[in-house]
């Protein structure tokens, strides 16, 4: 349990902190202030809103789940082993962070599209194609959001005391058992923090989704896509959709309270 330090905030820190906070909060306030409150109810119950929200939440959660299953092992390899080429692996894993999402979408096409390197085989064997499906949305979101999880978990693993793993070894635990029963529980706050970041990034993903998965209401039209399209024809609808996304995101982040992220924040 940590108590914040006593004493006020020094001025050289307080002023930039206040400015930064305003900078982040004012645009969000703008959304709230300019929302069409009078017909909010009617707009919220339009069918497109519900399906876009549901799709966004489901795909973001699936993407995060996949990212955890694949990303935690990657983080473990990066933090705990000496395999050669680790730095190359780390660079590759972080590429989606710096790549413009649209480029990511194009790249996914080139591999998993109907004419793609692997997609072509899939199509020939099963007749199944990935683009323009909800699966494509999940894959696009996983692609852009997984690096957040990997970096967060690698950081947590490095900060964790590796000597506990020595102790577990002397108690008869092989590397897999040690990972399951000692390492993972010890870094679970870091994993949770990474998962939250990953989920948030997946929820807001636009460029890769629209390029690779396309846009179709109910199947691939996520909230960000809805907002983008609405903005061009009906800005007030766009504001409503943005507000919904904002409320959902804030609620989720509040639910994952500081206590659960506490150790990761302190690490």
């Amino acid at each position, binding site marked *: 349990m940590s108590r914040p330090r006593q004493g006020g905030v020094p001025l050289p820190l307080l002023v930039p902190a206040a400015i930064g906070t305003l900078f982040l909060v004012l645009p969000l306030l703008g959304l709230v202030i300019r929302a069409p409150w009078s017909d909010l109810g009617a707009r919220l119950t339009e069918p497109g809103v519900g399906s876009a929200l549901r799709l966004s939440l489901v795909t973001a959660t699936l993407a995060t789940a996949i990212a955890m299953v694949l990303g935690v092992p990657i983080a473990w390899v990066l933090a705990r082993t000496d395999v050669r080429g680790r730095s190359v692996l780390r660079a590759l894993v972080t590429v989606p962070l710096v790549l413009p999402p649209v480029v990511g979408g194009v790249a996914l096409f080139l591999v998993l599209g109907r004419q793609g390197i692997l997609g072509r085989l899939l199509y020939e064997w099963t007749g199944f*194609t990935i*683009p*323009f499906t909800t699966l494509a949305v999940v894959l696009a979101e996983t692609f852009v959001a997984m690096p957040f999880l990997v970096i967060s978990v690698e950081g947590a693993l490095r900060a964790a005391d590796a000597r506990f793993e020595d102790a577990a070894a002397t108690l008869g635990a092989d590397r897999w058992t040690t990972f399951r029963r000692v390492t993972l529980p010890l870094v679970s706050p870091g994993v949770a923090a990474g998962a939250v970041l990953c989920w948030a990034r997946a929820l807001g993903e636009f460029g890769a989704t629209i*390029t690779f998965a396309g*846009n179709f209401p109910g199947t691939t039209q996520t909230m960000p896509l809805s907002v*983008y399209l609405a*903005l*061009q*024809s009906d800005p007030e609808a766009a504001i409503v959709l943005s507000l919904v996304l904002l409320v959902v995101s804030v609620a989720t982040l509040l639910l994952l309270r500081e206590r659960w992220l506490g150790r990761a924040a302190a690490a």
Partner: protein
Amino acid sequence: MRTRALLALPAAALLALTACGGSSGDAASRGTAGSSSGGDLTGTLTVFAAASLTDVFTGLGDQLEKENPQLDVRFNFAGSDALATQITQGAPADVFASANDKQMKVVTGAGLQAADPTVVAENVLEIAVPHGNPGHVTGLEDFANADLTLAVCAPSVPCGAAARAVFAAAGIDARPDTEETDVKAALNKVQLGEVDAALVYATDVRAAGDRVEGIEFPEADEAVNQYPICTLKAAPNPDAAQAFVHLVNSDAGRKALTGAGFRTPGS
């Protein structure tokens, strides 16, 4: 020594800013009906134009730059809806060319035009299929085939509105797999071979050359897109703006348009 360097920074910034803004009233405007603009336009010309005008306008822009070596022509090609929204939100454009009347009305409705818009071209929809027509598409009725992978433009984009109109006119219950945000994105999917067919403009089919085959259909005449153009009241470079519009309306301009597959108004 250090203070001088510090003072130089803001001065340099100011200089850069003024250079970016168009110079007003520098060149004597020579209103000509011909394609030559006199050669003394300077500064930057910013043209917001529908994506389908990309190739034609880029060529005309090059010509204008050749005739006016001190002029820099910049284009913003995108969906007309996005452009109209940007202009009404205050984006600094000199010229606006829309892919349909509806989006131009957004701009004129806000009173942002310098003079009444004129229609410079017309465009009709055409079915685009990948080279070799792998989906064996023959006509518009194939768009009701759920087994094919099909793309249209989103309804809020002129190309998409036109698609809806032709489907209605033909009595077809269309089953697209994706509604792209602009026509170039839809064409892209065809070029990549990721969709069996897309409804794009005749000009797009022409522009894609060998990679794409076009299939005309009679219902296309039910939704003719007119392309109005206008200069904007708040244009930073009104002389260059007028010169560009004259160029588009001139013989050279018309030749470029028809060469790309547009119809000229009244033909």
